[in-house]
């Protein structure tokens, strides 16, 4: 059969190349009429299936609770309520006894009106939830036909899971088998469906909404799932497969090095220590951080608490999450970034509306200062979670000194409030700020006197400095971390920080490229914070160079006129030193741009 590519929605980043394992839902169920004397037997079968489905959901509930996946847990709780509702059994019994339907037929007859009503709903959020409502019924159907999910324990080879839709209670079962489940592709679903969120949590690449998938794919067909761009390649040609595999090897080469690198310090050959930390979004990602050999967490994003959910997070809920992360990482440090909402990250209930220029709009610290109630709740949770002494916080998107003052003022009020209430907290919790706007770079000397550290957010700094919208395909290629203007901005911020006696880190994608990381070390950046995935290769890059050499390279780059010049120079100077398999075939900075283009696409998706 011919190869072809289906386009869906990128839901969880990464590549997966493997044969498909297609999970067919029992749609073509047994709809036959039964004889009246068969009714009691059918009811008995149904009781058994209901009991097993309840057991499965109850198990999923426990696992989701352990993972801290509150929303998915709420969803499964409702499914369980549906199956425990006496009205459900009564409705099934009525169809079986009264209409002589088989147990399968009865379930379909009862569930069809829900699917119809939700799929035809005028509110898109209700349309998105059509699957959730049907999930409970489907669980019973599966058990009725003993068509339980395949036993993954027996899976020997890697597979790509293909399904029409996946309910949270189904996706949760992949967690224990993520070694062999290399990707997930579904025909239905959206980026914000619970299963997409879980796939991201588990680090399994995932594409959703790939129309035509179920009709085109048979179990055993080779698939290439690209969770960056949202495509699924069916039965790729041998060359295409080889190309993808090569890319995949590059992306996974760090895994083999994990064991040897994890416990080694991140120091240059001449003994300068560089703090290598990881970026996370969810508490469960702490496990990846610990495995990666990172020292601490340099960027703990907190937007997750506010997006994809119907209500604001409580202080207790946040406290629990921050405290869990701080405790697991102790004694290393954790930097919590306060809410960075707005831009492309908006939740309708926050009252944000579509803006013509969201990245120049109501976002970051501006948004937080405009929502003092919500912001205070978060600050209280952070201070209270700081009792282990290893928590820090930083503000995003600061542009003016006045904003910084105002945010610091709120912090002082919150500290006083907590002291008055007698609640345990860390009154000396260090406060830093992100340097990600040109104005912050140029006011860095003033700002440095008010904070404990700087963290350069390279993604935004590049976008604002170069006036490039990363989401705009026509200009995405101009998004260029190696542009001398960017390097000079970083240099300026680091020096301003030094003069005031504070340190500077970099926490954007830019730092994830080994050659660029060496350059940043040469610019006197003290901490690099990257995705746990990039940690091992950065560590081995830093360990391969001398501090004095890195500084000389950086000084030379600051004087260059173009990114191309910097790139060629870095390759010439550093490639002979760096372990070959770390670099792959990409030019310095190239991966950043690819990732940026991919991020741009998904950003657009989020706004649409």
């Amino acid at each position, binding site marked *: 059969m011919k190869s072809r590519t289906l386009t869906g929605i990128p839901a969880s980043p990464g590549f997966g190349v493997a044969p498909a394992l297609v999970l067919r839902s029992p749609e073509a169920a047994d709809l036959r009429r039964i004889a009246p004397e068969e009714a009691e037997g059918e009811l008995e079968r149904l009781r058994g299936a209901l009991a097993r489905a309840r057991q499965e959901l109850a198990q999923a509930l426990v696992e989701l609770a352990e993972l801290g996946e509150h929303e998915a847990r709420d*969803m499964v709780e409702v499914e369980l309520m549906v199956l425990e509702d006496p009205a459900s059994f009564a409705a099934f019994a009525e169809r079986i006894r009264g209409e002589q339907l088989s147990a399968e037929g009865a379930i379909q007859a009862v569930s069809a009106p829900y699917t119809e009503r939700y799929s035809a709903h005028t509110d898109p959020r209700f349309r998105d939830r059509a699957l959730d409502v049907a999930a409970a019924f489907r669980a019973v159907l599966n058990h009725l036909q003993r068509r339980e999910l395949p036993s993954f324990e027996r899976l020997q080879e890697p597979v790509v899971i293909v399904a029409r839709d996946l309910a949270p209670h189904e996706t949760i079962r992949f967690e224990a088998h993520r070694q062999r489940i290399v990707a997930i592709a579904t025909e239905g679903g959206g980026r914000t469906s619970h299963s997409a969120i879980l796939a991201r949590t588990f680090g399994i690449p995932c594409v959703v909404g790939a129309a035509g998938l179920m009709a085109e794919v048979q179990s055993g067909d080779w698939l290439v799932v690209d969770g960056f761009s949202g495509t699924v390649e069916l039965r790729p040609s041998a060359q295409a497969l080889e190309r993808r595999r090569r890319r995949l090897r590059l992306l996974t080469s760090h895994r083999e090095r994990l064991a040897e690198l994890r416990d080694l310090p991140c120091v240059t050959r001449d003994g300068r220590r560089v703090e290598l930390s990881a970026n996370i979004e969810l508490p469960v990602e702490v496990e990846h951080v610990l495995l990666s050999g990172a020292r601490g967490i340099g960027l703990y994003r907190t937007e997750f608490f506010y997006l994809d959910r119907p209500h604001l997070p409580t202080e207790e809920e946040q406290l629990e999450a921050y405290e869990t992360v701080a405790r697991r990482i102790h004694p290393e440090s954790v930097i919590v970034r306060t809410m960075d909402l707005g831009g492309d990250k908006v939740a309708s209930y926050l009252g944000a509306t579509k803006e013509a220029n969201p990245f120049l709009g109501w976002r970051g610290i501006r948004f937080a200062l405009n929502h003092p109630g919500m912001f205070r709740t978060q600050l209280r949770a952070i201070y209270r979670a700081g009792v282990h002494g290893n928590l820090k916080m930083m503000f995003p998107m600061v542009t003016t000194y006045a904003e910084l003052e105002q945010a610091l003022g709120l912090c002082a009020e919150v500290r006083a409030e907590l002291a008055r209430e007698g609640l345990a907290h860390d009154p000396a919790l260090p406060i830093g700020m992100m340097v990600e706007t040109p104005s912050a770079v140029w006011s860095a000397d003033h700002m440095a006197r008010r904070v404990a550290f700087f963290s350069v957010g390279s993604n935004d700094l590049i976008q604002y400095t170069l006036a490039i919208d990363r989401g705009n395909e026509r200009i995405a290629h101009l998004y260029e971390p190696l542009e001398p203007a960017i390097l000079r901005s970083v240099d300026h911020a680091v020096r301003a920080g030094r003069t005031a006696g504070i340190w500077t880190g970099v926490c954007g994608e830019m730092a994830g490229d080994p050659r660029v990381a060496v350059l940043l070390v040469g610019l006197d950046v003290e901490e690099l914070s990257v995705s746990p995935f990039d940690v091992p290769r950065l560590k081995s890059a830093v360990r391969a160079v001398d501090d004095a050499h890195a500084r000389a390279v950086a000084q030379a780059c600051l004087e260059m006129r173009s990114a191309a010049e910097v790139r060629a120079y870095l390759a010439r100077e550093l490639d002979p030193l760096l372990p070959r398999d770390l670099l792959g075939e990409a030019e310095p900075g190239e991966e950043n741009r690819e990732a940026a283009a991919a991020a741009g696409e998904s950003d657009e998706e989020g706004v649409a």
Partner: protein
Amino acid sequence: MGDAGALTVREATLVIRNQQGMHARACQVFVRTASRFRSKIIVGRDDLEVDGKSILGVLMLAAEPGAEIHVRTEGVDEAEALEAMRQIVEDKFGEE
């Protein structure tokens, strides 16, 4: 509002005000609240009427933000029941 209904029936028309409407979790809160009372609690939307104590029933309402639902209570604690249901809808199911 028609909450001074005939004889032993009490009813009220309520508007869904929370941002997500009566999605799964809101339905759960609604049903758990209704189940605390002995009275019969009937919820209607357009020409559909369901049992307010049954999640299966309440999910069928699919009431989005701005939708109107009609709640009718009948039984020994009907006044308290109606008041509680009004409260839970007005409190946006405890979400905001």
